[in-house]
C-alpha cells in the first residue's frame, strides 16, 4: 500500500503565478521593486512621489469615464458637461473629483519639488532626476491649463483667452504658439479641438514617458535619504521599501483620496453661463495656481508692453531656467538645509511671494465687484 505524500500540491493560483514567473521573472521583479533600500529608514516626507502617481492614475480613470459622455465641440461641450453633472449617474462626483484632483496634483507637485529642494536631493548624482522632474512640473501645469477650457463656460473661455494672451508675449515663439493653440482670431472650435487633443492624448503620453524615465533614473541613483546623520547612522537605520515605506505611501494615498472626495462633496463643480466672446459681468481670471502671475501683471511696474512681457514670461522663464541650472550651479555637497541659508531664504521668499500674490488676487475680486 502506498503511503500518502507529505508534500502539498500547489493551488491553482500558485500554478498561475508560477507559470507567469517562469516566463517573465515575476518574483525577481517583485523583489527588485519591494526590496529597494531606503537610507535612514522610511519617512512621511518621501510619500509625495507615490502620491503623485496615484493622483495621475485617478485622474486618468475619472477622465476616461468623463470622456464617455463629453463631446469636444463648441456646440456641445457645454451641454454635454451639463449632462454629465445633471443626468449621468454619479457624473457630478466624477467631474468634481477630476476637478479637485487637478488641484491636488498641483499641490503635491509643489510639495514634492519643495521636499527635493530642501533635502538637497537635486545634487550630484541626481541632476537628471531633477531635470526630468521639472519637465513633469511643466506637464502638470499644461494639464491644468488645457483641461480648464473643456467645460466651455465663461470661466473656461476667458481663463484660456487670458492664458493665451500671456503666452503671446513670449518672444519669437509666442505668436506662433498663441496662433497654433487658438486656431483662429478668437477661441472657438479649433481651440477646443486642439486643447482636447493635447489634454487627453499628447500630455498623458508625455507624462507616462517622462514619469517612467523619472522612476528609472530614481532607481538608478537610489534615494538620497535624510540630510542629517553620519553614514554609519544612516546605514544602521536603512530599511527596505517594503513594508514601512509602502505602508506610509498607502496611508498618504488614502488620505489624499478622502480629502479630494470630501472637497468634491463640499464644493461640487459649478458651471457659469455658456462661453461667449462677450465677458459681460464676468471678470476673467485663470485657475488659482496661475493667480499669482495674474496679480503680478496688475502691478504698475509691469504696465506697458515691455512690463507685461517681463512679468508674464520673462521672470517665470528666468526662474525655470534657474531651477534647471541649479544642480550645476550649486555644487556644494552639503545637503542640510539649515547649513544652506541662502537656499532656505530663497525658498521662503518664493513661497511667501506666491502666497501673497495669490491672496492679493483673491482680495482684488472685491474691488472688481
Amino acid at each position, binding site marked *: 500500500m502506498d503511503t500518502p505524500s507529505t508534500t502539498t500540491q500547489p493551488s491553482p493560483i500558485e500554478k498561475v503565478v508560477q507559470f507567469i514567473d517562469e516566463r517573465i521573472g515575476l518574483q525577481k521583479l517583485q523583489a527588485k521593486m519591494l526590496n529597494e533600500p531606503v537610507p535612514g529608514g522610511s519617512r*512621511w516626507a518621501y510619500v509625495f512621489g507615490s502620491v503623485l502617481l496615484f493622483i495621475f492614475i485617478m485622474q486618468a480613470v475619472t477622465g476616461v469615464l468623463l470622456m464617455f459622455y463629453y463631446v469636444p465641440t463648441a456646440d456641445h461641450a457645454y451641454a454635454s458637461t*451639463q449632462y454629465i*453633472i*445633471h443626468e449621468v*449617474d*454619479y457624473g*457630478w*462626483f466624477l467631474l468634481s473629483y477630476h476637478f479637485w484632483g487637478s488641484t491636488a496634483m498641483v499641490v503635491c507637485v509643489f510639495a514634492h519639488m519643495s521636499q527635493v529642494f530642501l533635502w538637497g536631493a537635486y545634487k550630484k548624482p541626481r541632476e537628471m532626476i531633477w531635470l526630468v522632474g521639472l519637465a513633469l512640473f511643466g506637464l502638470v501645469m499644461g494639464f491644468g491649463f488645457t483641461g480648464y477650457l473643456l467645460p466651455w463656460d465663461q470661466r473656461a473661455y476667458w481663463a484660456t483667452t487670458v492664458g493665451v494672451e500671456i503666452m503671446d508675449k513670449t518672444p519669437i515663439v509666442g505668436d506662433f504658439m498663441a496662433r497654433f493653440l487658438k486656431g483662429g482670431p478668437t477661441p472657438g472650435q479649433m481651440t477646443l479641438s486642439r486643447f482636447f487633443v493635447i489634454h487627453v492624448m499628447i500630455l498623458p503620453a508625455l507624462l507616462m514617458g517622462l514619469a517612467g524615465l523619472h522612476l528609472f533614473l530614481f532607481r538608478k541613483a537610489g534615494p538620497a535619504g535624510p540630510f542629517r546623520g553620519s553614514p554609519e547612522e544612516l546605514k*544602521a*537605520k536603512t530599511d527596505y521599501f517594503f513594508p514601512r515605506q509602502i505602508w506610509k505611501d498607502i*496611508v498618504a494615498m*488614502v*488620505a489624499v483620496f*478622502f*480629502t479630494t*472626495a*470630501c472637497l468634491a*462633496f*463640499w*464644493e*461640487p463643480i*459649478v*458651471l*457659469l453661463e455658456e462661453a461667449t466672446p462677450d465677458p459681460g459681468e464676468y471678470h476673467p481670471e485663470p485657475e488659482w495656481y496661475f493667480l499669482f502671475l495674474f*496679480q503680478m501683471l*496688475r*502691478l*504698475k511696474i509691469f504696465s506697458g508692453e515691455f512690463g507685461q512681457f517681463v512679468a508674464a514670461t520673462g521672470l517665470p522663464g528666468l526662474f525655470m531656467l534657474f531651477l534647471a541650472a541649479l544642480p550645476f550651479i550649486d555644487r556644494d555637497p552639503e545637503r542640510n538645509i539649515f547649513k544652506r541659508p541662502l537656499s532656505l531664504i530663497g525658498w521662503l521668499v518664493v513661497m511667501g511671494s506666491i502666497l*501673497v*500674490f495669490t*491672496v*492679493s488676487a483673491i*482680495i*482684488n475680486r472685491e*474691488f472688481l465687484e
Partner: protein
Amino acid sequence: MSSMKLALHVLWSACWTGLPAKLGLALLMMAMGSMNLEHMMGVAFLFLLTTPVSLLSVPALQGLADLHLGEGAGLGILFLLCIPIDMWAVGLTARTVFIERLKVEPQGSFGVRLWGLLVLAGGFYVTILWLVEGLVTGIGKDLAHWFMELELIKGLPVAERIGVELMIWGSISTISLVILLSVGLKIAGAIIQREAAKALPLSESYQHLVTRWDLMRIPADQTLMLTSVTAAGVLLIFVFWGAMPVTTPHPHQDYKKPEVKVAPHVKPADRLAKGEKVLAQVESQVVALEARQAELEAEKQKGKPKPQAKDKASTKSDGAKGPAQPAAPQAAKP
C-alpha cells in the same frame, strides 16, 4: 529634548496618524447627507479635526465666538468618533517617541491619560488662541488700513495697495500665531515631560527598538485583523456608494439647470416648398420694383431739356470709354 520639540514630535505625528481615519468618517457622513459644512468654516473644521487637542475647544468656540461649522447630526457623531481615534493615535505616537527618543518605557494606560490631559489643556488654550488670534488679526487689518490712508501713499494703485495691506496685517497675524503656537507647544510639552518622568528607563539596541515599534502596530492575530479590516473596508465602500446621491447633493443657487426647449419637427419637403414660395414672392417683388424704377427713369428723361451738340459729343465719348455710369445724385434732384 526641549519641551517644545517633544510636543511637536508627539502632536504632529498624532495628527497625521488619526487623520486618514477621521477623513474617511467625514466622507461617509457627507455621502450620507448627515453633514454639511459652511464654506469658510469648513476649513476651520478640518483644521480642528486634525488636532487631537482641540476637541473641547470646538463647543467652547461655538458658544463664545459664534463659530458655526455647518449643519447635520454627522458633525456631532464625528466628534464622538474622533475621541477613540485620538486616544489611540496619541498613545501610539507618544509611546514611539518615548521609546525611540527618550529611551523610556511608559506604564499602564498611558495613552488615555495623556490624551485626557492634552484635551483639557487644549480645550482652554485653543479657545484662547482662536480668540486672541482673531483680535490681533482685526487690529492688524485696522492698522494696515490706517497706514494706507496716509497722504504719502494714498495715491498707490489698487494692486500695490492690496499687496502692501496684506503684507502688513499678514505679518502681524503670522507673528502672533507663531508666538501663540510656541506657548501652546510649551504647555503641551510640559505635560508630556511630566508623563515621561514617570516612565521606566530602557536599554535596548536599535534593532530591538524597531521590533518593538512593529509589535506595537501589528496585532497578535494578523489573519483575524486583516480579515476584519478588509470586511469593514468592503462594507464601507458599499455604504459609501449606496448612500452617495446620484445627482449633485446640494445644488448651488447659480446651478440652475437650463430649460430644454423642444424644437418643432422638421418636414424637409414642406420646408423646401415654403422656401420656394418665399423666393418666388421676393422675385416678383424685385421685378415689380425694377419696372417701377424704369418707369421713373423714363419720366425723368421726358422732363429733361434736349442736350446741346457739345454735350452729345461728350456723352458719346464717355459711352465709348466704358459701361454707362449711374446717374449722379445731383441729376436725380428735381
